[in-house]
């Protein structure tokens, strides 16, 4: 019986979700693979975006996968850390920008 929620080996078993729903699983993976194919954005740009989003949503599986994915698309540590900072800046900024609403309210009810 596992004593932790996450087992790194489970990342490789992602495809097994089809066992409990083949049709929707197939649709998802077809779309997923199409999303990450080279297009208007390069594979490296997509890997770095995915890495940043993985940190924003804090998915351990995605962080694992897209750390490797970014390295294998030619990114280095500095590029990857900058991408994570972008995620952090957006998350932090999305809290702070709502402070404008707070300030508006303070001013509307304060003398």
């Amino acid at each position, binding site marked *: 019986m596992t004593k932790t929620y996450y087992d790194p080996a489970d990342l490789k078993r992602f495809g097994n979700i089809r066992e409990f729903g083949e049709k929707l699983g197939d649709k998802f993976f077809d779309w997923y693979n199409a999303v990450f194919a080279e297009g208007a954005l390069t*594979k*490296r740009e997509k890997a770095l975006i995915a890495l940043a989003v993985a940190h924003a949503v804090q998915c351990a599986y995605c962080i694992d996968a897209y750390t490797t994915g970014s*390295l*294998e*698309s030619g990114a280095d540590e*500095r590029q990857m850390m900058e991408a994570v900072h972008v995620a952090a800046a957006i998350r932090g900024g999305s809290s702070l920008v709502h402070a404008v609403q707070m300030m508006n309210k303070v001013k509307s009810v304060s003398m």
Partner: protein
Amino acid sequence: MNSAAVTLRRRDPALASPQRQLELLRRGSERLAALEPFAARLERAGLAPLRAQGIEVLQVNVGKVCNQTCKHCHVDAGPERTEAMPREVFQACLRLLERTAIPTVDLTGGAPEMNPHFRWFVERARALGRAVIVRSNLTILSANARFAELPEFFRDQGVRVICSLPYYEAGFTDRQRGQGVFAKSVAALQRLNALGYGQAGGGLELDLVYNPAGAFLPADQAALEADYKRVLAARHGIVFNRLYTLANLPIARFLDYLQASGNLEDYLEKLVCAFNPAAAGAVMCRTLLSVGWDGRLYDCDFNQMLELPVEGGARIQDLDDPAALATRAIRGDQHCYGCTAGAGSS
């Protein structure tokens, strides 16, 4: 002298044994033993038996002496190694060139420039009208006064220079190849550029080689080449012709790194999953013959380091029938998944 690591022979003599490395890759754990044998994978791809398709390149490994001890080195080369090709083996190589139409000689090592017969052999091979490639680590050009004029020698002989630069920044490069290697490599590339190397259509070809600084696969060659050209030109004024991407093969010091870092099984599984039949059909061993420092013949430099000689186990000094080698069956084992992964290794 740069030293990113000690040689495996000194650090772990047991693992330095080629037989031990082959056994580790085949059966070192349950997960490794469960991987499909390379021969079976070739069979399934309709490529077995893999045979040579002529000899376009005579790759001569002139020895294991090197001024660097890069962490990933499949040769386990370093300053304390002593294996160096003697003159009589070089002469046997020249005799083979005289008897055949092999168009290209590819000099590798260790640091091939450190062999005392290096310049003499380059001159003789060029006099026979063969193209000569030198795989240079770049730092050798500034390592010692006796190598200082090699760039001019390369230019005068029309040598094609292929050199390793694991990344266009110092971080990955120095961690893999030694502190300060990136800066020295940049200086050497600038010097080669000043002599005319690396200009498009200029006739003096300068190519770079990328290999991953860890247990991951190489990036797309075209995309990386564009990045290297853009950054090296903008930051250092460096130009070059082509970038090649190579996967690290699980041999010698890279195998040691994989095992010590706990990445061995994941990495082998990654290589096996990335098997590409197109890459397998175009592997370099199909048109290359590898000569060891002592004259023994191999299908490639990787087989050489694992002591897997060509069918029949000939030495170049005793070679009666070179024509038979042009269609020989190629020996493979689990390490070969490194050359058949993804886009392949050039």
